[in-house]
């Protein structure tokens, strides 16, 4: 891996600058065409049926945006008699009709104090009017009908347009660099200390004749961190097979056990030592966070492993594991994207992969140019975020110092 920087390299970034520029203008769209409330124009004046309690006012209706349809939200302002007194409102009844002035039917009621109701039985593309009736022991009062509204199915969630564009831009950037990396050699990737140490840590286990224990976190396969950890296990297992070190993988989820077995088996096969693999290297303990920690603590003390890997999604047990492994003199290489647990790994372990480094680990260890290319794609993502931050901050600062009226980029998201 060596650094290459020339003017050609810089020119290749041009498409991205263009994309970024486009990206700055598109996101304004959703705020321009956002769903608007339909308010009854003459809602201020209200018709009173029974004089006793004050009626609810300002009945507004709105299709629930960005859903698959079939529902309408009705909101109103409470009767001024809601909350106490002789005319205290006991509940509100909600009426619906397809005509403004007739045919109202009760579709539900709410307790006193409520100011909104969702009509879940609205048919798509049918216009409805709504009325609210306040009910008190002294009598009832009815609001004016609302404006008409119809529920509709949305085919694209406009409030997520920015996210959509950003997904495309970053996704494309990563894809682009993966493709480019296929034809390009010598992509520079900076050193990551925790991953440089993996070779030594595995070798140490061979020298000492003790085990390597690999802990893939406590979450199931529905976490990207577990998936990242399992791919790292693949690289570690291959090294272990080459160095003829003993590897043990106790896990706390059945699906993770199955996956880890596939991965370790394949790694031993690729290293040319399929005979050295057996299923007992990967075993299940319990689904429980602290019982798992208790069992691992016992394992550490009894086996005295040379190396312990703690990679994946961890919670409170992180420090229990790290401190116990430390007390038996094991080298510990940890990695997690859990911001709450990073401090403990940093304090107690020899090496820690911080957040994003965990996801970069498998690419880094594999040295596969395609995977390394994706890391460069990530950097483009960071670059876009940095650019947005700088421009956004400069705009707002200029606004506050010089009284300009530049757009607030934060609003676009």
């Amino acid at each position, binding site marked *: 891996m060596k650094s290459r920087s020339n003017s050609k390299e810089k020119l290749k970034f041009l498409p991205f600058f263009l994309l970024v520029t486009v990206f700055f203008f598109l996101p304004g769209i959703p705020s321009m065409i956002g769903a608007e409330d339909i308010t009854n124009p003459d809602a201020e004046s209200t018709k009173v049926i029974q004089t006793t309690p004050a009626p609810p006012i300002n009945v507004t209706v709105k299709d629930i945006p*960005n859903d*698959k349809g079939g529902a309408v939200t009705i909101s109103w302002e409470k009767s001024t008699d809601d909350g106490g007194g002789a005319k205290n409102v006991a509940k509100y009844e909600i009426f619906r009709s397809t005509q403004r002035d007739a045919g109202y039917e009760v579709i539900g009621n709410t307790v006193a104090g409520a100011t909104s109701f969702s009509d879940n039985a609205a048919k798509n593309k049918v216009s409805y009017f709504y009325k609210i009736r306040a009910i008190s022991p002294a009598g009832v009062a009815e609001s004016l009908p609302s404006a008409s509204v119809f529920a509709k*199915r*949305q*085919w*694209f*969630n406009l409030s*997520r347009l920015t*996210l*959509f564009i950003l*997904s495309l831009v970053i*996704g494309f950037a*990563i*894809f682009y660099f*993966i493709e480019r990396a296929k034809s390009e050699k010598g992509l520079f990737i900076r050193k990551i200390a925790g991953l440089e140490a993996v070779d030594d840590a595995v070798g140490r286990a061979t020298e000492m004749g003790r085990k390597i224990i690999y802990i893939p976190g406590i979450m*199931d396969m529905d976490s*990207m961190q577990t998936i*990242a950890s*399992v*791919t790292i296990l*693949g690289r570690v297992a291959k090294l272990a097979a080459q160095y003829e070190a003993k590897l043990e993988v106790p896990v706390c*989820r*059945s*699906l993770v*056990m*199955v996956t880890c077995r*596939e*991965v370790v*088996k*394949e*790694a031993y096969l690729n290293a040319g030592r399929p005979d050295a693999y057996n299923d*007992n290297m990967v*075993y299940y303990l319990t*689904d429980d966070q*602290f*019982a798992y920690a208790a069992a691992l603590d016992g394992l550490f003390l009894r086996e005295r492993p040379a190396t312990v890997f703690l990679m994946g999604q961890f919670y*409170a047990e992180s*420090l*229990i594991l790290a*401190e116990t492994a430390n007390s038996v003199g094991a080298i510990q290489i940890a990695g997690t*994207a859990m*911001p709450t647990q*990073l401090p403990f790994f*940093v*304090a*107690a372990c020899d090496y820690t992969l*911080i*957040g*994003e480094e*965990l*996801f*970069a680990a498998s*690419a880094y260890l594999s040295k596969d140019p395609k*995977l390394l290319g*994706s*890391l460069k794609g*990530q950097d483009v*993502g*960071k670059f876009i*975020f940095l650019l947005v931050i700088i421009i956004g901050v400069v705009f707002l600062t200029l606004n506050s110092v010089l009284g300009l009226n530049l757009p607030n980029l934060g609003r676009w998201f």
Partner: protein
Amino acid sequence: MRREVPLILTAIVGITMIIAHFIPPFNILKNLFEDWFFIIAAFAIYLGILNLIRVNADKLYKKQHDWPFGLVVILGFLLITIIGLFFSGGRSFQDPGTPFYYLYMHLYYPLSATMFALLAFFVASASYRAFRARNIEATMLLLAAFILMVGRVPIGYWFSDWLGDALGKSADWIMDFPQTAGQRAIMIGIALGVVSSALRVILGLERTYTGGE
């Protein structure tokens, strides 16, 4: 079949889930896939349990070192499983008053809470070892931790109001600004890491889990 089907399946499912985030009618598929996940996990737990019992039964059978504890594992498992499945009122097995609840409160809970409480000791030993002013980075770590530890409990009040208040204020300030800044950088980095890993998985570049390099 062995290699291609998993790759295609991952790609299709992954892309569907991304699309569902933007196209509301796809939500139905999203919900369905998520339910299937729980069903698969519920089936898979049998594999784990079988493995656990086999390992411990092996210990017992071969009279390995510490074999009596293998027996304890198996008996503990059978006790709570049989009671939970058959003798605790079915679905309401966790209601106060059931035998399952009793085992939970007096066996599971004390063990779990105590294991958790061990952290109080490990936090002390780890901070004693790690918080030394070896270099600039370590000093930053030490200072931030120290101010937070003192500032977040009213130790200061034993000395004087002024000191306690100053410490509390600086603890709050550290949490609000430099801490938040560091945290944010980590979080944004993680977002890109997840996006990139997810993409590599969907594109089939990382497929060790299906037995491919």
